[in-house]
């Protein structure tokens, strides 16, 4: 599948129908997930209604890390096999991942105010998540600071791979430091510790974020490929 799509022409043909499809899926999943999460799921016996922020917060946290992992894979492929489509994919994913990270940070602090009594605390998880956000910003800034796209792609890929170290730190920060933040309750060895009535809307929202990511990623990639083609055509015109 991936090797098949690695050809830009085939990718363009595939994404021409896949991007709208994923977009549609995202819309449906949000249409189901949001009301379910915000209105029909039970309030928490401890946290009350504020628990509903979770359905926005947790998927954003998961996918901000997921997107970074995806960029890591794409960067590795771009660096080792010099595959330009992988470079395009990594670059196109970054702003989406940065947005997810921002959503996680913002909803996290909104949630923190009522439950912990503070917007922000320099605990391990919060700090490492902020670090992820800044790594995203640095990655994007590096891309835009250079005008030679090929070089920019390779350098950004190196940076992205180095930044992968942060992912396990985020994941395990709650276990390594005793902190304010909740330890893993859904994805942990020994089964999930969350009530099924909350798990349903949560997973739906996670699916919605994923579909949205896939749709936006393909749209960004298509735009980048179009821009490249136009530039190449202009260069060829300039030479003649």
């Amino acid at each position, binding site marked *: 599948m991936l090797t098949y799509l690695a050809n830009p022409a085939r990718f363009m043909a595939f994404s021409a129908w896949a991007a709208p499809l994923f977009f549609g899926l995202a819309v449906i999943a949000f249409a189901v997930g949001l009301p379910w999460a915000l209105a029909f799921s039970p309030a928490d016996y401890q946290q009350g209604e504020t628990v509903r922020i979770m359905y926005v917060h947790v998927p954003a946290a998961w996918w901000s890390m997921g997107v970074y992992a995806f960029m890591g894979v794409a960067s590795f492929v771009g660096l080792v096999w010099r595959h330009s489509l992988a470079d395009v994919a990594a670059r196109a994913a970054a702003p989406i991942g940065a947005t997810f990270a921002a959503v996680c940070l913002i909803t996290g602090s909104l949630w923190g105010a009522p439950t912990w009594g503070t917007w922000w605390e320099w605990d391990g998880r919060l700090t490492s998540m902020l670090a992820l956000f800044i*790594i995203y910003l*640095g990655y994007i800034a*590096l891309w835009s*600071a*250079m005008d030679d796209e090929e*070089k920019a792609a390779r*350098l950004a890929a*190196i940076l992205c791979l*180095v930044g992968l170290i942060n992912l396990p730190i985020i994941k395990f920060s709650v276990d390594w430091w005793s902190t304010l933040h909740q330890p893993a309750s859904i994805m942990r060895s020994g089964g999930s510790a969350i009530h099924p009535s909350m798990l349903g809307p949560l997973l739906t929202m996670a699916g919605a974020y994923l579909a949205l990511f896939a749709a936006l990623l393909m749209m960004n990639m298509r735009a980048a490929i179009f821009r490249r083609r136009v530039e190449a055509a202009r260069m060829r015109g300039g030479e003649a």
Partner: protein
Amino acid sequence: MNAFVATFRRDVALMWAGGGALAPLGFFLGATMLVPLAMGPDRALLESAGPPLVWIAAALAVLATLERLFQADLEDGSLDQMMLSPAPLEALVLAKGAAMWCVIGLPLALAGAPAAIALQAPPSLVPAIVLSLALGTAAFIGVGLIGAAVTAGVKRGGVLIALIVLPFFAPPIIFGSAVAGGDEVGAALSILAGCALAALALGPIAAAAALRLQAE
């Protein structure tokens, strides 16, 4: 090995001549002057804010030197010559990092001793603070090599470097300040040593890969 030593020696000489050893002095004076100015004359506040200042000074001194570390080599053609050496580029990058540590990291770590005493840290903690600073600056430099190499082609990349390396400066700062605070000194020191080792192992490899691209 020869090439490593030659690179190390030249970089030490150049940084020294360029005022490298002034870094701790300058930043130290600057920080101990600026911060109280900005914070007002509250002694208690200063005393708790004090030890972290050395860490911030260390991070900033490393940051200030990073921008030109490889950019100068790229602009004057020295990088080409480094790539023609029998020594692997990784080793030469490590030599430059080692030189930077000797001229900037080590003096800063030593400056940590008077700083800690001036800010009335318990004397028994002073060796640990100096050691933590020595390890922390090594970690900063290891990570910084990557940032410097990746941005070597960008003019006035100083701010870009800051953005790129700061997230990686966080762990050493967190554990370093823990040492200054006196909690779980042993554990914090071994984590710092781990950070420094990891940064010094990874840094030269990633930086050398980036520099090979810069030379194109």
